[in-house]
């Protein structure tokens, strides 16, 4: 097994998918010779050529719209949108078409499309380069949303997304791209979509996080007997694992970097309040980004959750 960082694991998954299935091809801005602005597609252009690693004009709706046509026609396109903040121009294609083609044609057509995009804060990048609006995509039936948290699940989730017969949004936590390294199995394998992972077992409270926040939570909760759930799939999220843990601990903390109001944390909390409220000993706390327009680098650390804020919330919950 080679030691890879998260972006290398993504690169390896793409390389294996391209090798094993000629229906797979990649399209996006700067993914060819340049190897992607984060190098996620590094070397693939050289190996597979411009017929399968397709540099596109600067048009996100166009990239996703074309990928939809390819997917319905029978290919397995993997589209890269350079940053989540530039998925907004493609939302119409995602919501209006990718999400609905199966239902619209009552199963006659389907849309096995993967949209990869770097997301999240903490990298001191310009405006629109640190969005974490994952919740928007979790409110649209017909698409799935996954977020890896380690190099190994990054590889397995991406291969699973490419095999999935439905459209999958694959969000890549940019802050983790080179931060985390670990041994990653060489052979292809699938990390099942729809299943969460118990990142650490615990008794006193349940902490739910994903992507970059999972790494933060692991550090912040080190000295607590917390069960840490790495959601991995945001839509459809793993209700069973979540509720089982809450029934055990009776205390819940949800951490995400997106703005609090309307974030995915709201759905997780609402699900618990509807289905497991009797097991709760304390309020359901959310530590999240604030309800503000995402700040530029000089202020971003004031907006993103910190270990301090997480610890404060843990302490508060444990007082119940």
């Amino acid at each position: 097994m080679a030691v890879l960082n998260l972006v290398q694991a993504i690169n390896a998954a793409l390389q294996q998918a391209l090798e094993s299935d000629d229906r797979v091809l990649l399209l996006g801005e700067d993914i060819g010779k340049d190897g992607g602005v984060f190098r996620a597609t590094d070397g693939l252009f050289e190996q597979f050529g411009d017929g399968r690693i397709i540099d596109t004009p600067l048009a996100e709706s166009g990239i996703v719209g074309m990928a939809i046509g390819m997917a319905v026609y029978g290919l397995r396109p993997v589209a890269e949108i350079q940053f989540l903040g530039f998925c907004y121009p493609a939302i119409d294609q995602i919501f209006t078409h990718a999400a609905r083609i199966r239902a619209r044609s009552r199963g006659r057509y389907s849309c096995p499309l993967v949209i990869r995009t770097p997301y999240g804060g903490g990298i001191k990048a310009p405006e629109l380069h640190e969005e974490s609006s994952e919740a928007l995509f979790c409110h649209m039936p017909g698409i799935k949303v996954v977020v890896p948290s380690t190099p190994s699940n990054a590889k397995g989730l991406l291969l699973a997304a490419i095999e999935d017969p439905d459209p999958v949004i694959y969000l890549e936590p940019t802050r983790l791209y080179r931060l985390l390294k670990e041994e990653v199995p060489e052979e292809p394998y699938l990390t099942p979509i729809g299943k969460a992972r118990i990142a650490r077992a615990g008794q006193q409270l349940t902490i739910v996080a994903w992507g970059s926040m999972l790494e933060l939570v692991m550090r912040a909760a080190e000295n607590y007997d917390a069960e840490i759930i790495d959601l991995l799939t945001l839509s459809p999220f793993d209700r069973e694992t979540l509720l089982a843990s809450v029934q055990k601990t009776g205390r819940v903390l949800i951490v995400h970097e997106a703005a609090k109001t309307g974030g995915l944390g709201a759905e997780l909390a609402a699900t618990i309040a509807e289905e497991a409220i009797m097991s709760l000993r304390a309020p359901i706390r959310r530590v999240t980004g604030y309800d503000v327009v995402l700040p530029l680098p000089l202020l971003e650390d004031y907006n993103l959750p910190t270990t301090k804020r997480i610890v404060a919330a843990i302490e508060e919950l444990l007082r119940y």
Partner: protein
Amino acid sequence: MPSQLIASFQINRLSILAPDGQVDESLMPELSDSQLLQIYELLCYTRMADQRALDLQREGRLGTYPSSLGQEAAQIGSGFALRAQDWIFPAFRELGVMLCHNYPLELIYRFWTGDERGQQTPEGVNIFPMCIAVGTHVLHAAGAALAAKYRGDDMVAAAFLGDGGTSKGDFHEALNMAGVYKLPLVVICQNNQWAISVPRQTQTGAETLAQKAIAHGIRGVQVDGNDVLAVYQATKEALDRARNGEGTTFIECETYRMSDHTTADDARRYRDPEEVKKWQERDPLLRMRRFLDQQGLWSDGDQAQLELTLKERLTRVVKAAESFAAPNPEEMFRSTCHQLSSRQQEQLKECLNGRT
């Protein structure tokens, strides 16, 4: 090196069949008599099927419906030129195109009653679901064309949209992609002069829609959209070029929406009846019939016979459409993704437990 001419472009308009039925022999496409008759029958079938839909809607047996009255030539001329292996990406008003390719009319009626099963394209028919979101589906055709090119399939993708659709960004992103990748694609604009209440000249400042191709380095032509032979010929040429690796053509068919936008619309609020009259004289069916008359290929008797046959066929179609069992709510769940989430399973139970 003063101000220097670096590029020049021309837009041509093709017409072959005049309103009086005269044709320009030099441009006459290669069509056998039986093909010419087939085309005329499709024109008539489209018009009668459309009229029948309007009647059904008035009787409350169909939902909101967009009539294709007046656009039959633009639809049959292009549809007839497309081959079975080509993929068709319709907007929502391409009744004629779909009938050319044996899309079951009962399914089309079903769809307009508000039943998704009407978009379950039969196997072997390469027609994409109708697209309600104007202008967004040309990208899907471009993607399919790129996929076919990648696979080496002998397939040309054909997208249909209206004049209004040419104002959408997605339309331009698609044409630009088509120009970059030299895609085997034909984009056929049904310029029926209106986008609901917005007339063609409020839709764009361009003199022609065909010239929008120039922005993307692809070929653009205009045809008399009420001239079924010109539309056929232009589409045929575009398909041949696409197959020969000469890339994409954008075809503007100048026609007219003779009906209201849909059965929910009242065009008298915004449109001069005089204009409608003017276009009646350019009726695409009349024109073709005159031509067939002059060729000695058609008689009043033939017409009466044809109308009788089609009427009977329509009766059978309506019967078939209306004998569908009501859709099962389970469909909503089963066709959202390939599997149900645990929450969807619960919701399905609740839904079937008939709390409704």
